[in-house]
């Protein structure tokens, strides 16, 4: 069965090539059928492979062709099919397919319809290569490929200069990460002579390395993961990447590409397991990112920006899990997050579509009655990300928290704060968008309509997945008591590190109830502020006004909420947004650029254009060279 795996990336590639060569004369219907059909075909094959993996549980390497034979470097272009890659396959092609269907509705009025599908297919192709590759080299091909596709899709509406800037920023940030990955690859290769996972981990090549070398390699690998998965301080590109069409945000910047970093760390899990320093670094970077994303999201008013920062924050959660050695739980959160975040992004796309391009939640409100389907599915997604039982997010997030509690108390507390923020900002956004009075213009109100079936059907499918998806990973202790196993951990065991805690059933239930209780309180707070009291959200220029002016307004309890939750969070969020992001990080990036340009100016001065000067340089060059040769 695993031999079929070659077909999985082949279908999207064929779809892409078709669009490139015949796309211009193809109708939108046919483009949809071919583009989505290719992904669907991949999905079916992935299901077959997954099923076979479910039974055999044996990792299989499928060689496609011999690729690089240079000196002692032998790399086959081969796919490694095991439980980790087949799990990733399933949600890449599955969620990918739904987003393709959705795009056919969302992009129906766009002149670049064919181009869009071509890029999407190409993206899926590279993502599959990334996940399937049996060595770091093959992974790197997919890694760079998705980077390029992401770059093209962010700048898809290339007519606007800002989109091109965002695309460039994303690309450069990713290159910084890639640098780390390349260095890690070089170090691994020069020390072990191979880049193949099976040889590295199963044949134990990695064990022969010195501890300091292991740590160095792991840290460089992690830098690679940081770039792709938007971890602090390389996260700034992700919110900007929202400039692309919304299905792109859903597919690439929420569900699949950004989880490549998680994949990289999980795939090389043994390496991280052997280095405490690196694991701790992963955990703390994840923690900072989770907190920062969550607090910034509190103050954002662009519907896609809120979701973007929420993605950054959730990715941080996953890295915390990785850092604690609970790799299977990180993968679990990747899966549930793919469901509900794709759902939320597609829902926000539906809202933007209905609002005629408006993205500011301050201009929305009361959309419930115009877009009932979007509202219902969006609510499901919001509940899932807030971590309410029995929605998918509850299971995965709860297990991360449980592990943190066993592992490191301060980390646990900070994570609980981050997840409390999550519940608050998600419901803030939900209420502002769908409840209350409509705050936009009349023209917008007139334009409001529910999205077509091609967009709502994927929403429903994802909504169902967001409800039931969590049951594949039922908590261990609780599951043991009622004989409901943690299916995912069982499946992933082997290729992925599975950490099983020894938590008692009681503690597990109390923790679940406690986190849910906190989420419920935050939802109530959000409801109180934005629905019961209908507090208007401040315009950007008003936020900077002195705090006492705001406190003078009589809100009763709301003032307390304001002071307790919103103000500090606002302040922290702003501190992160302004100081850390723009001043420090942009400063570093700019300084690097300036330094490179400075050297360039020096080099340019040599090129005066006078032949005599050129000849002099020649002779001086020759003399220096002779000097170097006879330096001894």
């Amino acid at each position: 069965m695993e031999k079929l795996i070659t077909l999985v990336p082949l279908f999207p590639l064929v779809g892409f090539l078709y669009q490139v060569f015949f796309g211009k004369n193809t109708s939108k219907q046919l483009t949809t059928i071919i583009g989505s059909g290719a992904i669907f075909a991949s999905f079916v094959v992935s299901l077959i492979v997954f099923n076979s993996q479910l039974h055999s549980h044996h990792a299989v390497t499928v060689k496609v062709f011999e690729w690089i034979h240079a000196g002692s470097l032998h790399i086959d272009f081969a796919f490694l099919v095991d439980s980790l890659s087949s799990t990733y396959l399933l949600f890449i092609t599955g969620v990918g397919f739904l987003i393709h269907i959705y795009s056919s509705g969302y992009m129906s009025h766009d002149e670049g319809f064919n181009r869009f599908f071509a890029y999407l297919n190409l993206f899926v192709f590279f993502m599959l290569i990334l996940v399937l590759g049996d060595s770091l080299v093959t992974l790197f091909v997919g890694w760079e490929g998705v980077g390029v596709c992401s770059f093209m899709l962010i700048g898809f509406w290339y007519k606007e200069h800002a989109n091109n800037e965002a695309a460039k920023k994303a690309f450069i940030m990713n290159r910084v990460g890639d640098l780390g990955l390349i260095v890690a690859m070089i170090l691994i290769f020069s020390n072990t002579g191979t880049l193949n996972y099976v040889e590295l981990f199963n044949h134990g090549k990695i064990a022969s390395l010195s501890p300091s070398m292991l740590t160095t390699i792991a840290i460089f690998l992690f830098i690679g993961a940081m770039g792709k998965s938007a971890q602090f301080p390389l996260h700034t590109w992700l919110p900007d990447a929202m400039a692309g069409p919304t299905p792109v945000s859903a597919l690439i910047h929420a569900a699949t590409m950004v989880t490549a970093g998680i994949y990289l760390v999980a795939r090389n899990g043994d390496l991280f397991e052997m280095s405490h320093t690196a694991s701790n670094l992963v955990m703390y970077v994840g923690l900072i990112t989770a907190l920062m994303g969550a607090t910034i999201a509190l103050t954002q008013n662009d519907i896609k920006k809120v979701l973007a920062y929420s993605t950054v924050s959730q990715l941080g959660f996953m890295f915390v899990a990785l850092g604690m050695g609970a790799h299977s739980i990180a993968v679990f959160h990747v899966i549930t997050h793919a469901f509900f975040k794709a759902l939320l992004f597609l829902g926000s796309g539906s809202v933007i579509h209905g609002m005629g391009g408006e993205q500011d939640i301050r201009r929305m409100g009361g959309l419930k009655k115009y877009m009932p389907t979007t509202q219902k599915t969006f609510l499901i997604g919001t509940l899932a990300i807030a971590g309410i039982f029995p929605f998918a997010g509850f299971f995965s997030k709860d297990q991360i928290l449980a592990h943190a509690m066993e592992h490191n108390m301060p980390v646990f507390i900070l994570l609980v704060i981050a997840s409390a923020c999550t519940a608050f900002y998600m419901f803030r956004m939900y209420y502002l968008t769908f409840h209350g009075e409509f705050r936009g213009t009349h023209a917008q109100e007139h334009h409001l309509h529910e999205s077509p079936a091609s967009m709502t059907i994927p929403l429903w499918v994802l909504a169902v997945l967001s409800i039931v998806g969590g049951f594949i990973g039922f908590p261990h202790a609780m599951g043991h008591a009622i004989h409901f196993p943690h299916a995912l951990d069982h499946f992933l065991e082997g290729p992925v590190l599975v950490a099983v805690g020894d938590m008692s059933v009681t503690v597990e239930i109390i923790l679940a109830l406690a986190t849910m209780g906190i989420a419920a309180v935050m939802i109530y707070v959000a409801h109180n502020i934005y629905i019961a009291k209908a507090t208007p959200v401040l315009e950007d220029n008003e936020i900077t006004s002195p705090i006492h002016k705001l406190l003078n307004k009589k809100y009763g309890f709301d003032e307390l909420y304001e002071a307790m939750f919103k103000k500090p969070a606002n302040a922290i969020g702003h501190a992160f947004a302004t100081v850390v992001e723009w001043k420090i990080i942009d400063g570093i990036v700019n300084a690097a650029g300036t330094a490179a340009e400075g050297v360039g100016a020096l080099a340019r001065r040599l090129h005066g254009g006078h032949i005599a000067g050129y000849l002099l340089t020649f002779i001086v060059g020759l003399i220096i060279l002779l000097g170097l040769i006879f330096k001894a």
Partner: protein
Amino acid sequence: MALVAAGFVVTTMLLTHLLGPKRKTKIKNEAFECGIESVGNARTPFSIKYFLVAILFVLFDVEVIFMYPWAVNFRELGAFGLWEMFTFMGLMVVGLLYIIKKGALNWEK
């Protein structure tokens, strides 16, 4: 050692360049024509045709030199040498025809 040597050369060259007095006069800057006073500008335009004919002459003239060693060794080289020379002359003829075709020898154009 090498560094000291190179450094010495560079320093002395720089020093003479910097320390030496420079008194430029009009006469000093004039071109030296073997003691005879220079007349007129050296950069007078002349017809490019002279240059063309001259360079083509040099070209074909030099190629003829190749025939001397061939003639000296004519017996040893035998038929092979004869055919080689035919090939060579053939190429020369093509070249000659080409320049005639291009009008390079056409003085009146």
